[in-house]
């Protein structure tokens, strides 16, 4: 049974690759990259033979703790497995413990699990000077990797066990995103405050070695340092951790098997049309209303909205530690850039629901304008507001006109360019209702390709504003800034108009082909 589950997992992986060549290529590139990184890690572990034990200990314990923490956090964003999750397996009479073993091993043979396992096992490579410790490190590596996989399972199943309502899942997915974006400043902040004390990292490693995250990784070095008691204590901590995690996972899985995902819903009264009552009743108008509704109701869009306030916050932080106010003011154009590029996945996010636009014979141009204006309605005020607020905060009004020009140029231009690219390519995107952080195999490479092309075109189109911004900053003459503002508005509008027209024409012609791809991805 265990072998069957493992084989099923591998089979699913193989079959998902067979569906499309592009996806396969993407996975191969990703796999090669992973192998390259793995090779570096293994090489580094062997190189540590020449390092003193204290340094080795600091590195292994910290890296191991980070790895374990990563395995605990990541599954919240990326559900690792869809095929072998509880609802799919609930119908088969598989004993719980067999199921647990099968899931554990199939987690280890999946790509992330395998990489973790190999890297962990190779921690023995640093101990060639003490063969006994090397054997111990080998065992600890296996235990550590197993803990990682189990931890990710426990976190997912506990999360589903606690609440399987749709709203809870979606809200949790978005809320957890916020600390993640701010992780950089948080780490930088703690690091810079700790920088003063010289041996902060060894101390941190020492502290981590007493926590469930780092205990297992510290056992070999503890023995090597001649502290068998410390090693035994950490081994006990490690074992207790594994036991607790296993029990939590078992509890969560047992619960998930008998509690299918259920829907909870807020019901509105009939006749509440929302935005549909306020927008012009043309196809472009209703598409804008629909897209805007989605921007505020669909987690996949909401996640991008959250970025609007977070980006300035992030840059405020960086500018305050580097004392460069200009860094803060760049956040206006940057938000514009992000929002302008947001349209690139719009049809991919529609998934096969896009068929409605086709069967109602919506002209491509109306489709493009509708989607673009939905972003403009909240994007333009947001970008202008951020530019003005950051200027107030940094008390530097000189570059504002030029920055506004660049921001508006980027927003309008981005929407225009995306109107074309998104009519040409669709790619596997998280399905409606899925975790917005879920990525599909191969999605990233396809997305990256079209994103880079979009950025390239956007950079060329916005070259005048960028040059004018630089000129206005170096000469210090306001005039250049005002010219940039005019150029940004005019050039951006032209780009958007051309983009919507061209994208609309392509969409009219290519809609059936896009639908075929969407059906393949669904």
């Amino acid at each position, binding site marked *: 049974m265990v072998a069957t589950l493992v084989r099923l997992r591998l089979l699913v992986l193989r079959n998902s690759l067979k569906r499309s060549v592009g996806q396969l290529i993407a996975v191969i590139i990703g796999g090669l990259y992973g192998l390259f990184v793995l090779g570096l890690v293994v090489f580094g572990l062997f190189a540590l033979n020449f390092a003193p034990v204290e340094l080795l200990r600091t590195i292994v314990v910290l890296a191991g703790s980070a790895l374990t923490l990563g395995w605990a956090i990541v599954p919240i964003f990326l559900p690792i497995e869809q095929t072998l999750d509880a609802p799919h397996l609930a119908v088969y009479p598989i004993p719980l413990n067999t199921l647990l073993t099968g899931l554990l091993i199939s987690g280890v043979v999946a790509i992330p699990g395998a990489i973790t396992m190999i890297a962990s096992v190779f921690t023995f490579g640093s101990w060639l000077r003490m063969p006994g410790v090397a054997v111990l490190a080998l065992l600890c590596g296996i235990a550590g990797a197993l803990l990682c996989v189990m931890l990710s399972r426990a976190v997912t199943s506990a999360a589903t066990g606690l609440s399987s309502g749709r709203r809870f899942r979606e809200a949790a997915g978005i809320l957890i995103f916020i600390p993640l974006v701010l992780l950089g400043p948080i780490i930088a902040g703690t690091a810079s405050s700790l920088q003063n004390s010289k041996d902060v990292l060894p101390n941190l490693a020492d502290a981590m070695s007493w926590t469930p995250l780092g205990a297992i990784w510290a056992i070999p070095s503890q023995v090597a340092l001649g502290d068998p008691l410390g090693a035994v204590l950490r081994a006990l901590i490690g074992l207790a951790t594994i036991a607790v995690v296993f029990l939590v996972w078992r509890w969560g899985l047992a619960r998930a098997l008998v509690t299918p995902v259920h*829907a909870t819903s807020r019901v509105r009264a009939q006749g*509440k049309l929302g935005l549909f009552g306020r927008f012009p009743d043309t196809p472009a108008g209703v598409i804008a209303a629909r897209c805007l509704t989605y921007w505020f109701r669909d987690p996949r869009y909401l996640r991008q909205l959250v970025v609007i306030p977070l980006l300035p916050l992030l840059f405020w932080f960086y500018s305050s530690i580097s004392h460069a106010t200009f860094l803060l003011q760049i956040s206006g154009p940057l938000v514009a850039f992000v929002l302008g590029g947001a349209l690139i996945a719009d049809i991919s996010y529609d998934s096969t629901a896009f068929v409605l636009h086709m069967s109602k014979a919506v002209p491509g141009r109306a489709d493009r304008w509708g989607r673009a204006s939905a972003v403009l309605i909240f994007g333009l005020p947001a970008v202008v507001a951020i530019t003005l607020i950051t200027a107030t905060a940094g008390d530097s009004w000189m570059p504002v006109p030029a920055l506004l020009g660049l921001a508006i140029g980027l927003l309008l231009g981005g929407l225009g360019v995306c109107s074309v690219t998104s009519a040409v390519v669709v790619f596997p995107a998280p399905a409606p209702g899925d975790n917005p952080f879920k990525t599909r195999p191969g999605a990233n490479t396809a997305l990256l390709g079209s994103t880079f092309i979009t950025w390239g075109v956007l950079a060329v189109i916005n070259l005048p504003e960028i040059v004018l911004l630089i000129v206005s900053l170096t000469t210090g003459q306001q005039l250049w800034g005002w010219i940039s503002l005019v150029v940004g508005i005019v050039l951006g509008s032209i780009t958007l108009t051309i983009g919507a027209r061209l994208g609309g024409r392509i969409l009219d012609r290519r809609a059936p082909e896009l639908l*075929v791809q969407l059906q393949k991805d669904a």
Partner: protein
Amino acid sequence: MTDVNPPTPPRPTPPTSTPVASPDPDPAAALSIRTLYKSFGEKRAVDGISLDVPAGSFYGLVGPNGAGKTTTLSMATGLLRPDAGAVTVHGVDVWQRPLEAKAQVGVLSDGARLFDRLTGEQLVIYAGLLSGMDRPTAVSRTADLLQLLDLQTAAGTLVVDYSAGMTKKIALACAMVHAPRLLVLDEPFESVDPVSAANIRDILGGFVRGGGTVIVSSHVMDLVQRMCDHVAVITSGRVVASGAVDEVRAGADLEDRFVELVGGRRVQEGPEWLRRS
């Protein structure tokens, strides 16, 4: 896949099959399909289908799983580009003049998602406005359709929280909101409860009596026999019989006739281990 479309064993051409006469699409027919082909890679999904759906008929499209029903209907409604062949809706070529053709057709696609973050009411209004009507018309038609399909109480619920049957009904409302002359419904009764199915049947019957044309694809022979006046049997991407229901079934039960036409019925009691007594 090694067994790509094994050659169909020779069987006498069913006398009930009305061969499509002219090589050009029939402008009088509600839907006229001529020698439609579509391959997906190695697999020939639709292998030269020709079909005339008379205006004002209630037409059933039946066939086993994977026979090419959905592919045919997708190509007939302008959603999937055929490799070859022609399709007209009331004389308008679907692939030459798609806007005009689509204005006359209401489509319910099997397995396609809906914009399910909208409430049921918003979704139908969206569909209406997309096809170009003004808001008051869309709103009042939506109210009528919701009442007709018994969805008023769920009008304000997000479609994502609908049951499968309710989702099917709201999709049907989207297909009907622009008052098409031809309704093309792919598996409209799948996962719909008997009461709702009966209601939908009544609505479709009324639509046909009012001068419209309905095409449904279905597995449920019994339903097709009771509901439709015309039927086409498709298997392996080909039409093996078509015409008035009574002609096609030729005195037999439609289900038996279907199994006979399509083949593949094996008379055996199943493996030993499955028998309890």
